[in-house]
């Protein structure tokens, strides 16, 4: 054994391996023809003295990979095998679990007899079902808690690690890893699980609590993303936070805020109330129209589907009829000795074929026309709805601007009033920062105007998103509809022609044979 050089996986080795494992029935042909690595689903490379995993890039569809009994030191170059379900790396010299992040479909992982001292790097292997980590250097019992997250884990082999000497080992594992069926080659019975859970009841309760909180958070996040997605589809994303954005992200306003805090807050609240009304109306309208558009889309699809089923049925009936006759006539050609009969048969066959071709094409032509009409009608309706949303949005934003202007006037008024009072010297005990702000009237006015402009800018941005979003969507949809239809048409015509060609070829062959 020692005489063999440590090696890296190379092409020759791979070729040999896949040839060896080919189905004996087809092995001969396969070897001559060559086996496509892309079609290989499993690969066995054991006892090859491999030191470094490499050159597997061609085998992207592998579901099973056996690399046991080699001298591999590092898990590498297998991260692209995303279909992998079974990975055997036992009896190697691996020290760290790594490079498995993309293998999310992995259900069976064997790292038996290696030099691993810590469980890590497996966060993404959530479908893991069988895991073997026996004969390694695991020491800390707490490290096993890492396996808690694998909900599908049923078989675990941990035997032969230092931590197994710990008297609590079995109980700990059974208590923490739920659903385990086999542990260290043995069937797990209900009683021992119950006993183990009893022992670690405190830990478990704490864990459950944590889990609950995490789940709650997850749920909230999910809801939020759903809502956002909905708004996004209606092109009014971020409209809920628009108001807060307007003031929160505006530095000018933040500076002006302390000038007359109370008054400004009042104004802002008033502003918010009016603003909310408009926003809610817009939101309601947009979402309503969105569902309308979806309905429209659905009924359109339904109609297309229905027509398709009908016409296809018609065509299939025609084809079946034709094939039936063709079969009969071909049989005549085969068996008959009478030249006249053969001639007749060939003639009718040819006629039938061209007739079939014609009628199929005719059906296709009608379908194209029909679809065009329906698509046009659909587009018209869809555009109408879209336009109504756009118009309504523009109106809403105009109202918002009015409200904004009103707010701006009153705000600047109050600012100026404060400024005058400051100039008069009424306000003595104020902070230095404020003093700076109030020192220059022009600058003050500019800041106020700047803040106003900033808010208007926000409106513009939101409006733009709405209008352009709708336009884009419309364009995309129209394009997609047309493209799909063209593609469908091409496919069908191509189908018909291929078939007719084939029929002609068949007839010719039959004709030749007949004479």
């Amino acid at each position: 054994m020692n005489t063999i050089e440590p090696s890296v996986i190379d092409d020759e080795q791979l070729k040999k391996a896949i040839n060896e494992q080919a189905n004996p029935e087809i092995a001969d042909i396969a070897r001559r023809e060559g086996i496509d690595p892309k079609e290989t689903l499993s690969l066995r490379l054991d006892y090859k003295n491999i030191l470094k995993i490499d050159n597997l890039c061609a085998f992207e569809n592998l579901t099973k990979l056996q690399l046991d009994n080699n001298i591999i030191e590092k898990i590498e170059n297998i991260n692209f095998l995303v279909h992998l379900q079974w990975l055997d790396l036992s009896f190697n010299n691996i020290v760290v679990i790594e490079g498995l992040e993309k293998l999310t479909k992995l259900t069976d992982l064997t790292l038996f007899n290696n030099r691993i001292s810590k469980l890590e790097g497996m966060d993404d292997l959530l479908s893991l079902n069988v895991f073997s980590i026996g004969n390694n250097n695991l020491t800390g019992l707490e490290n096993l808690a890492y396996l808690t997250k694998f909900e599908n884990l049923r078989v675990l082999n941990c035997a032969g690690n230092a931590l197994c000497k710990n008297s609590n080992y079995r109980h700990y594992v059974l208590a923490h890893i739920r659903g385990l069926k086999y542990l260290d080659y043995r069937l797990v019975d209900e009683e021992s699980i119950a006993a183990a859970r009893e022992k670690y009841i405190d830990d478990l309760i704490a864990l459950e609590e944590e889990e609950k909180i995490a789940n709650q958070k997850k749920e909230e996040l999910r809801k939020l993303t759903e809502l956002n997605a909905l708004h996004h589809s209606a092109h009014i994303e971020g409209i809920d936070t628009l108001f807060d954005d307007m003031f929160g992200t505006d530095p000018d306003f933040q500076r002006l805020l302390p000038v007359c805090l109370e008054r400004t807050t009042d104004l802002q609240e008033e502003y918010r109330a009016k603003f909310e009304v408009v926003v809610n109306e817009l939101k309601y309208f947009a979402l309503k129209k969105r569902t309308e558009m979806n309905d429209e889309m659905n009924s359109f699809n339904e109609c297309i589907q229905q027509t398709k089923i009908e016409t296809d049925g018609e065509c299939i009936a025609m084809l079946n009829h034709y094939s039936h006759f063709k079969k009969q006539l071909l049989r005549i050609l085969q068996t008959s000795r009478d030249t006249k009969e053969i001639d007749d048969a060939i003639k009718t066959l040819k006629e039938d074929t061209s007739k079939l071709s014609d009628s199929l094409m005719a059906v296709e032509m009608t379908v194209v026309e029909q679809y065009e009409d329906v698509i046009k009608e659909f587009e018209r309706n869809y555009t109408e709805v879209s336009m109504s949303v756009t118009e309504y949005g523009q109106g809403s934003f105009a109202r918002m601007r009015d409200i904004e202007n009103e707010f701006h006037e009153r705000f600047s008024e109050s600012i100026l009033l404060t400024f005058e009072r400051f100039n008069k010297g009424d306000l003595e005990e104020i902070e230095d920062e404020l003093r700076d702000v109030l020192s220059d009237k022009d600058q003050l006015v500019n800041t106020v105007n700047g803040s106003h402009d900033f808010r208007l800018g926000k409106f513009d941005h939101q409006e733009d998103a709405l209008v352009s979003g709708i336009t884009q969507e419309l364009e995309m949809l129209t394009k997609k509809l047309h493209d799909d239809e063209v593609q469908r048409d091409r496919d069908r015509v191509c189908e018909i022609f291929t078939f007719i060609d084939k029929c002609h070829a068949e007839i010719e062959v039959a004709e030749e044979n007949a004479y």
Partner: protein
Amino acid sequence: MDEPVEKAESVASLHEEAGGGNPGEEEDAVSMGSNSANTNVVNNDPHDSAEGKELNPNVEQDISKAVSGEPGVTAELEAEEGGSSVDIHEQYYIEQKEKRKKALQQQLLDRTRVRSSYYTTSRKEALVLQYVENFNRQYVQLYPARKDLFLTPANEFNVKKFVCTTIRPTQPAFKELYDYRSCAKFIADYLTYEPLDPPHELPQSLPSPTYTLKVQCGNCFDYSVLLVSLLRGFGYDAFVVSGYASRDITTLDETKTESDTIGVPSPKESVDSAPPEKDGPAEKAAKAAESSSKYKVKPPRMLHSHFLISQDEKAKLQAQKDLENQRLAMEREKARMVEDDDELKGLRIHAWVLVLPGKREVAEAFFIEASTGRIYSTDNDNYLGVESVFSSTNYWVNMQVCYDGLKGIHFDLGDNSKWEFVLLDNTQPSSYGSHAAGNGAGKKEDNGSDDEDDNEGEENSEILDLPPSWVDRISITKEQFESKCPAGSKSMLYKNARVETFAEYHRLDGMVSRYTFFADEPRGFYGEIREFFNNRRDKLRQRLRVPYTGKIHEFFDPGRHHGLKEHIIVEGKTTEIHFYPHSRSDGLVKRLEKEDKIIQYFTEREDNLVYRSVRYDSDSFDDGKDEKMILKMTEKFERNKASPAHEDAAKKTYFSRDEKIRVVYHLEDGRIIASYREFKKPNADQKASTLETPISFEVNPYLKPPKKQHLYAQLCNLIRSEQACIQAIKNSEREVAEILQARNSEEKEISLVIPVYDTIRNNTKVVSVEEKENHKGEEEESKATDLDYLSPFLVNYPNQYALTRSEAAAVKDACLKSVKERLIEKANIIQSRLEEVTAEYQRHQLSYSRNADSMTVEETDDYVKFCNESLFRIQILEKRLAKHKEAAPEKYIELDARLKADTRLNA
């Protein structure tokens, strides 16, 4: 005369006035015969008895004709039937029927068997009879034109009884009879109908319902009285109606009604069921509009010729006209048939049952025809007049005129102007009570006879009460109930069918009913026979025979071996077998057999197989070979969603002779043409390397052509599946042979199963514990007597019962000696066994004591076990020996005593 009678008399006279209105009108009624107070709506004068008698012979003829039905058709069908159906079962069955009939006839009137009330008249009854007689006298006087009332017919013992007392409300213990429909059906089935003779006269006697039930036959009055007794027992407000009905009803002639009107499934449906019309383009468009209201494709423009359309329309119109004419002609024909005059129309006396609303959630009054069990509305055309109505409580005489059948006749018996009651003491039928009383009062005022109310009030205080029914409780035994029909069978003739009903277990082949549908050639129907079975061990439920095509279709209940469901045989050859797919592992649904083809259909299989057919080489039949040459086999599969459509085989055809296999794939989405591949099978000696490129058609020309290795792998799989297919076909053949064989032997020896819960027929008698004990004792005794301990010693003596003294002594000695020997022998056996065991025990002990130090733990254990066992056995044997020693002398002495007592040795 007794006081009550006098009173009754006066009451009766009062009634007349109340009912009849003023005398002048009555005179009119008498003179005009059928016009006013007379219920008979007749064309010819009802009381012309001479004419009635003259008519009689004709009527008889009519009846006989009606009963025999349509002889032509029946005979025809029976002739066809004859060849196959008069088998041993049929014969046996007919014989049995005859026997039963005789037995029934013997069970005639026997006074010792019935209550005395049947053949005597109590004082109370006499009173009532007198009263009723009186009523009748007045009635006859007042309405001489009217038919006699059915008041006091004689019963089966020729004793006059008031009809109301003949009704005996009884509730039998069968929940199946609780509903009026099933109850009426039971009565109709259970009895044999006898038409009235002569049909225009009231019957001379009215037997008790118990008698009717026993003899299982009766006329319409017997039927109705029995049915009303039961219905009243079940709480219905039921009455016997005495009146007039059409000929069909009175003679129980159902030959004019279609069988499907009485719930017999008509075979026409299956015959007439033409495929539903295909959707025209217009309908299609309508459908499209329905499915999606908003969008629809415009239907392609149709180019029509107006001329052709108009021509078509003309033709259609013409056809319609023809059809109409035909229909009219047929209707005329029909009308003619119906009209065929019945000279006795309106004179035929009949009795049926009226059920009034109010009780048992009956919402509307209706009639039950007791002879058929059918329900009619109260204005049905078949009933032409009502004379009187009676129940167990009272008797009402109809005072309404039946101009137009029963249309407009009211059945609110409380209305005194419409119904004249016989007995005063009865409450009027409830629901109409208050309303009817008001009504009656109003009428009376109109008639200007105000003083009646007071009189009635006076009389009510001392009314004549009805004596209890003289009839026993009607008892129906379970056997009777289950036998359903008279002598277990009943046959009814309808216009298009004959229906025969048999009781369960009545026939040896388990048949419970048979419908024979007559041929109706103009409608393309050539007759068919349906037989229904129950309790068959072979689970046969129904057999349908079509003599015209020689088809036999058998239906089976689930639970048979092989999951057999239906079996269709045409002219002796099995053509179709259906299965219960869920009771089979291969999901087979049905199997069709044609001349040279066998088709099997499957469902819910894991490999998605739905169809498999084999075509045999028809030439090979001629060669007379056992093995039929398979020409080709086809398998069809459902779409398996797991693999892409162009790799999922939809149809595999194995051409066995041409050594070819063709695979047609499923349609891809949006495609109309399927891809296919045709492989040539490699010869046995050829190596895989010479794979021929298969002929193939790919619907998608852009798809990369498959590699050779894959094609070859596919071919290998196909060859394997072909082998599997052949195997499956062979298995199926074998299975069918098995089924046919099983069917044959089953038909030869039909056996019926008896459910465990059937207490009548289950022979496994449950013997009570006591009886069992007795039985046991008896058995033992008999054993004791059987065992003659002296016989071995007596054989040598020719005269066993007359032994000489010396002989007797010798026998005795021999006997005692042998017993002694036996006892000693037994003791010896026990002793020797004991010694044996002890010896072995000692040997083991010895060896143990010798090797005790070197023995392993297990060996020691074994030793201990052995010791325990041996000791136990020794103990037992010792005990037995002791006991034997104790018992032996006793036994010897006992035998000695017995021998001394033995009579044979006493000489």
